[in-house]
């Protein structure tokens, strides 16, 4: 046992994570996808500033439906655009939708869930009423309404729409976990030491239920990409920019004609991203629980 104190939870978690080879592979994949997303954003901004059409948007009708080959590694789509370039560009949208909506939804769900579970009574009643109200409305309608209200075009409305409607499930989970934990003796012991409610909730109980949040985060990615497909289809989501949702949607029509490559590569990319996030989330959950391994 080596001597260290202080930020021991995260230090120890990292040490355990490093010993898990699968988790490291997944972490590598996540970093790879993150770099692709950043690259995509840079390419997008560059072309926007220069006001030129980026290569992944160039239609080239001589090269429609090229199968994968040396000039187009993943083939071309119905407008002769390179699938690989569009795939890389799609990572950017998937990341934006997945991460930004999580950044909105997860804090709301966690904070409200903690408050409801910890204080109970009137606070709990109010929060349960609030999330029941949200849960009773069809999510898509709500997202549409928010997207309409938010000024300006673009993805902001989509982020807010998805973010403000998908915290309910997490809130319910966190509320239940906090209710379970607040009855435990260690919380009582923390109270007798004179700790305030906020500190008990967020510093002592929250690390014990972090697995709920991590798993929720890793499961949000496929859901967010799915929602983005529907919204693009309805015409309020991504317009013009290549997204995985749009690509799957258009590739679906041509699959029966034998144009398998667009669908295949997009779904492989989606599969890898989701798998990497899920496995990494799982491993992180295990690493954060000092009782599981050491």
């Amino acid at each position: 046992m080596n001597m260290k104190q202080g930020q021991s939870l995260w230090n120890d978690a990292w040490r355990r994570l490093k010993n898990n080879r699968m988790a490291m592979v997944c972490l590598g994949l996540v970093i790879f996808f993150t770099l692709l997303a950043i690259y995509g954003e840079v390419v997008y901004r560059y072309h926007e500033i220069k006001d030129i059409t980026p290569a992944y948007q160039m239609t080239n009708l001589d090269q429609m439906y090229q199968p994968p080959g040396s000039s187009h590694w993943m083939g071309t789509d119905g407008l002769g655009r390179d699938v690989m370039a569009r795939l890389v560009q799609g990572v950017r949208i998937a990341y934006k939708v997945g991460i930004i909506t999580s950044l909105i939804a997860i804090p709301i769900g966690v904070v409200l869930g903690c408050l409801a579970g910890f204080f109970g009574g009137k606070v709990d009643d109010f929060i349960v009423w609030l999330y029941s109200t949200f849960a009773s409305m069809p999510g898509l309608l709500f997202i549409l309404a928010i997207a309409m209200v938010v000024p300006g075009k673009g993805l902001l409305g989509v982020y807010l729409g998805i973010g403000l409607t998908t915290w309910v499930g997490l809130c319910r989970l966190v509320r239940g976990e906090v209710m379970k934990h607040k009855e435990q003796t260690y919380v009582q012991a923390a109270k007798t030491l004179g700790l305030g409610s906020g500190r008990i909730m967020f510093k002592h109980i929250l690390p014990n239920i972090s697995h709920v949040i991590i798993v929720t985060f890793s499961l949000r990615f496929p859901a967010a990409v799915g929602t983005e497909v529907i919204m693009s289809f309805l015409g309020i989501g991504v317009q013009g920019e290549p997204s995985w949702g749009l690509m799957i949607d258009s590739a679906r029509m041509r699959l029966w004609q034998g144009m398998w490559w667009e669908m295949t590569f997009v779904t492989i990319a989606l599969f890898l991203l989701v798998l990497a996030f899920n496995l990494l989330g799982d491993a992180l959950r295990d690493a954060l629980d000092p009782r599981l391994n050491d």
Partner: protein
Amino acid sequence: MGNKENILEVQTLSVHFGHGDGLVKAVDEVSFTVGRGETVALVGESGSGKSISALSLTKLAPRAATYAGGQVLFNNENMLARSDRELRDIRGSQISYIFQEPMVSFNPVFTVGWQIEEAIKLHQKGVDRKSEVDRLLDLVHLPNRLATAYPHEMSGGQLQRCMIAMALACSPELLVADEPTTALDVTVQREILNLLSELSEKVGLSVLMITHNFGIVSDLADRVYVMQKGRIVEEGSTKQILYDPQHEYTKQLMAAVPRLHPKK
């Protein structure tokens, strides 16, 4: 009002649960005192109201409880009239608790060193926390390296020692020990009790010991209160109670201590 010699003076304290027909008088006009440096035991079977009395000292009884009457004078100030904010400053720094089950009294995801530091951080500013943790672990006779251990890696006895270290982190004046040895096996019980009596002498700590076990009382306590159904039925010095119990219930409790060689 209160006596200067008494650090804690509980006067006709009543704590009730429910109301109307369902009213339960968990603590019913209970009065007791703890002198400075004294160890006082509150003895009774489970459900007799002793734990609720102890938690009520800093208003920590479960939310459903109502403080129906009486007062708790700690250093001649009524605790029940204090605000939550003021009570938080008193908890841990002036009145500390240790509990029955050391195994579940620690947060499972943090090292015990971290948790002892947390107690120090809360009430003492500007001390070197690392060396303070080492000092506290020394005080309870644990090796310093255990500061980096997680609760699940330690034994019940070690954890109870850590619990005591944590309770003593801010040099409280009163330690409330709620059945501190019940969950431990007998040889470890002995060690913990020795430690407590050693500490009460060394640090000049006043201890309110809550137990159902007269075996513990005889070793440790200066005075004893016997509680039954929310009321104090007998009080006196330990000797007096042990050798000449007056109340029928006290006799029953003493008879309930298991003996190795029961008298025929």
